[in-house]
């Protein structure tokens, strides 16, 4: 019999999981990304113990940047409590033993998928994005060899043609998320699949933005105070989504809202996608018109990561 031997080595991972050499490789890519804002730096992304497409790029960037003194916040769809955010936060709690928080203001590093917090970020914060497809030109030209040339020559005509065809067909630019931007007047960049509502936040942001795409093996960055322009036309200027109603729970306006279906009779409400922002407002006494409605009570429930009492009930 061929005795199969397994030696127990589990639980002996380096700080923040990655080995030091891998961290150095990622760190060097981050430095290049910062020096060339919006340019996608190739890096040798490692296999992570979570699937590609589930945040491996963001996780590698966070692991390379994270220090003992940091406080980490992880959000997915704006919320700290979605399953993938919970899983990633748990990963860093386990491998780096860092402090975690759901309060945007307390975090030094915020890893996000698909949203930017509503609260303005500060110079002392770093925002790490998980990116599925970093190449803004990919759906116009599938070949990397071609898109690389287009970036090299600053040849973005194809993108403008695509956006213009939208206008011709639909009367407007039919891109609602992952809306392309031009960084520091040079590189066209994909801001990751955040709704275009968040695009104005990445323009001239005080915090450093780092973008990690693990499967596609690219890192890019936007330094603080960098001009980031959403592509548009003089006769069709860029505009963001507007919601007719305020948040049903906290009454906030001018924030991104999720539509929540309450029943099968057409009952629905709109609530803040940024759960921390919403909770903080309710704690400060702001109440929306649905806050006392029993149908919405499960939405107003205290999230697992916070100690705040909810004012909505």
């Amino acid at each position, binding site marked *: 019999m061929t005795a199969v031997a397994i030696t127990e080595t589990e639980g002996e991972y380096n700080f923040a999981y990655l080995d030091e050499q891998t961290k150095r490789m990622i760190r060097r890519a981050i430095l290049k990304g910062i*020096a060339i804002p919006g340019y996608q730096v190739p890096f040798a992304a490692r296999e992570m113990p979570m699937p590609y497409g589930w945040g491996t790029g963001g996780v590698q960037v966070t692991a390379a940047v994270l220090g003992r003194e940091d406080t980490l916040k992880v959000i997915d769809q704006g919320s700290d409590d979605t399953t993938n955010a919970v899983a990633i936060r748990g990963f860093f709690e386990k491998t780096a033993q860092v402090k975690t928080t759901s309060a945007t203001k307390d975090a030094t590093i915020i890893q996000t998928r698909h949203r930017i917090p509503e609260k303005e970020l500060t110079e002392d914060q770093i925002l790490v994005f998980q990116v599925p497809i970093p190449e803004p030109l990919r759906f116009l030209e599938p070949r990397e060899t071609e898109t690389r040339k287009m970036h090299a020559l600053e040849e973005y005509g194809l993108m403008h043609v695509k956006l213009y065809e939208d206008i011709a067909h639909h009367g407007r630019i039919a891109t609602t998320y992952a809306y392309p931007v031009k960084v520091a007047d040079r590189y066209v960049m994909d801001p990751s699949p955040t709704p275009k509502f968040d695009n104005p936040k990445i323009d001239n942001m005080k915090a450093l933005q780092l973008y990690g795409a693990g499967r596609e093996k690219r890192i890019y960055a936007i330094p603080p105070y960098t001009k980031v322009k959403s592509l548009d036309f003089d006769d069709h200027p860029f505009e963001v989504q507007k919601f007719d109603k305020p948040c049903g729970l906290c009454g906030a306006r001018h924030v991104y809202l999720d539509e929540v279906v309450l029943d099968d009779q057409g009952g629905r409400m709109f609530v803040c996608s940024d759960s921390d922002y919403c909770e903080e407002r309710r704690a400060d006494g702001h109440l929306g018109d649905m806050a006392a409605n029993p149908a919405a009570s499960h939405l107003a429930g205290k999230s697992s990561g916070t100690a705040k009492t909810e004012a909505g009930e």
Partner: protein
Amino acid sequence: MTARLLSAAALSPGFSDPVHQGQQVFRSVMMALARPGRLTAIEAAGIQPPAPLTPALAAMALALADYDTPLWLDPALARSDAVGQFLKFHTGASVMTSPLEATFALVSDARTLPALSSFALGTLEYPDRSTTLLIGVDSFTGGKAVTLTGPGIETTQPLRVSPVPVTFWDQAEDNTRLFPRGVDMVFAAGNEIVGLPRSTSITRSEA
């Protein structure tokens, strides 16, 4: 490599805690490049590199270089066997004679800084394939005043670096014009560093 072949200088202390010190030094360099021209503190205590390598320069080399990143040393550093051995021992990086092949260039005497265009500038398709210069200087108070603008700078950012070669700021302006190609620079004086990436525009102040 065996220990007896190494001089005592080579074994002089690098990071006592490579994981966390490496992370801290990297964060300083990252923030310095993200906020060009701003003085950023760097923690290099405990590192005792052989002269003329300074603790701040050594800390950056140890944090960023390894056997995947060829180094170029300026003549003053290249003359010292102890410096070469120290870097080899702590980073594993090989030392190149041509600045074109270097991922990082270590410069201890900024007055002898070669032309910026002699380093790897990257290509239009791969502008990241360029050299990052780590340059030791005396101070950020002397020398010509320049004003920086560009990514990472809210309005304008004043900067002085001393010493630099006479033609340095002309070269730095040319380097900016090459964008997205070009080199990135990090200056170190004492326990402070200043980043000057290729994305930064430079204007000469009157004073």
